[in-house]
């Protein structure tokens, strides 16, 4: 469904991504793990069109989207929940979700999608009118994910959804991701929380300073010595 070939990304003269290739198939959960600064966020930003690539290509459902504008990629079904719970702080929960469907002209459908998100995250429903900036960290993360689901995307790019959350909430978020996936949305997940991310993933890639150093089935990587040493603390 999503095929990235030989992608290069530069920030000025620094090359953050060095010729990586990643494939995501329909219905999969694919995880990207790696240390801080490895380039995980950069890869997601490049897929959604927020960052520009200097080499290589991205194909989505058979179409070359390498040069496509970010808004067109959203229309095509790529949705990105950026790193660090970027909700719109001065807007209510409801307005945040409405903006998630900004590209849709269908008001009735937007309302339905909001109901769907409230079904997945009942906590958000109770806080419909609350300013997003005053939500707790976990609630903001739910809102960021919910907002990314508003247009019923084909693929969801999640950047560290468990960042800064208490263990119980991490579990809850991972369960939700699993649910979203089983209802048909393909997921590309970036995580620091390697054990959970690998357990959830069908397949995973391990990233080191802009290069892929390992890839394979989630459970296999979970068992591999290299991964255990580097990311799972032995």
């Amino acid at each position, binding site marked *: 469904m999503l095929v990235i070939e030989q992608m290069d990304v530069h920030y000025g003269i620094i090359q953050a991504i060095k010729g990586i290739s990643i494939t995501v198939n329909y219905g999969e959960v694919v995880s990207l793990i790696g240390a801080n600064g490895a380039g995980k966020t950069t890869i997601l930003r490049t897929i959604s069109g927020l960052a520009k690539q200097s080499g290589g290509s991205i194909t989505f459902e058979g179409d070359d989207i390498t040069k496509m504008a970010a808004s067109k990629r959203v229309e095509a079904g790529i949705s990105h929940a950026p790193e660090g719970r970027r909700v719109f702080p001065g807007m209510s929960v409801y307005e945040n979700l409405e*903006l998630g469907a900004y590209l849709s002209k269908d008001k009735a459908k937007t309302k339905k999608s909001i109901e769907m998100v409230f079904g997945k995250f009942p906590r958000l429903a109770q806080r419909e009118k609350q300013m997003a900036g005053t939500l707790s960290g976990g609630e903001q993360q739910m809102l960021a994910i919910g907002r990314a689901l508003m247009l019923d995307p084909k693929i969801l790019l999640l950047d560290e959804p468990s960042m800064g959350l208490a263990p119980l909430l991490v579990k809850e978020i991972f369960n939700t991701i699993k649910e979203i996936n089983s209802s048909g949305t393909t997921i590309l997940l970036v995580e620091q929380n390697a054990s959970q991310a690998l357990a959830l993933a069908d397949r995973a890639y391990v990233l080191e300073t802009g290069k892929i150093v390992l890839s394979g089935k989630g459970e296999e990587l979970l068992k591999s010595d290299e991964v255990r040493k580097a990311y799972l603390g032995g």
Partner: protein
Amino acid sequence: MDVPRTVFTKRNLVWLAVCLSIYFLVFFLRSYGILGNYHEITIAQICINIMLAVSLNLIVGFTGQFSLGHAGFMSIGAYATSLALRSRPDTIGFLIGITIGSVLALVVGVIIGIPTLRLRGDYLGIATLGMAEIIRVVFLNLKITNGAAGLMGTFRAANWTWLYLLTVMAVLAINNFVNSSHGRACISIREDETASEAMGVNTTAYKIIAFAFGAFFAGAAGGLYSSYFYFIKPDLFGFLKSIDMLVIVVLGGLGSITGTIISAILLSLLTTILQDFSSVRMIVYSVILVIIMLFRPQGLMGTVEISHVIDKFARKDKEDANTVS
């Protein structure tokens, strides 16, 4: 869906009635001589300041793009109108001038917005400041604008009717824009540009649209200014003028049109009152600003609008009625 629509028309009718009453009130007060020419000058200043500040609020308050160059756009409208009135000193000339001036300001807004709106925060402020300076220097050196001496007017086309009409039109247009889905897009840029882009908002385009739209109304305000106050020169449209507008916006509340209008009225009145005490004027003015900002750092209205408040009460009444029944 039908209920809000009827409420809407009722509400619009109320607003229309309010607008018309204000118009006729001032109109009659003037024809009975209760408001003299001296008062009309203050009223003109209020109208022009409202237009300038509301259009600047669209850029700074709603879209979150720091601009220090609004006076530059104002001067374009002012010069265009003044020049048009020279070749045709009547109302038609005024309308032609103000239209050309506003459109020209919009075009310049687009041209300047494309390279500068990539900058953020302070950098954008400096860039827009530089832009306004360039416009000022151009007017200073052009022959047709008569350099530093400026232009004398030939015909006062702007009267209370024009002042009021154009101000109401500007406020309505900007208010409608802000409450449309385009306005939502602009506000989302202010709230979080990255998230906004990730939602598929064309952030570059919307920043330019807000900037150009704001420039358009600043141009119109400039046109009103030059046709009402006769005399214009480049010095009137310097850095301090842009700061004046920014002060009104910040004081009223970034992102509140109601707040901007209230603060434009208050500050214009304050300037008029303080005119008689010219030696202490700036001190008193500044002290008042500092005091207000200390007690209302979010501005007089924050991001709240009068219509929100009314809606809230209306909804509450309805809910109360529902719980009773």
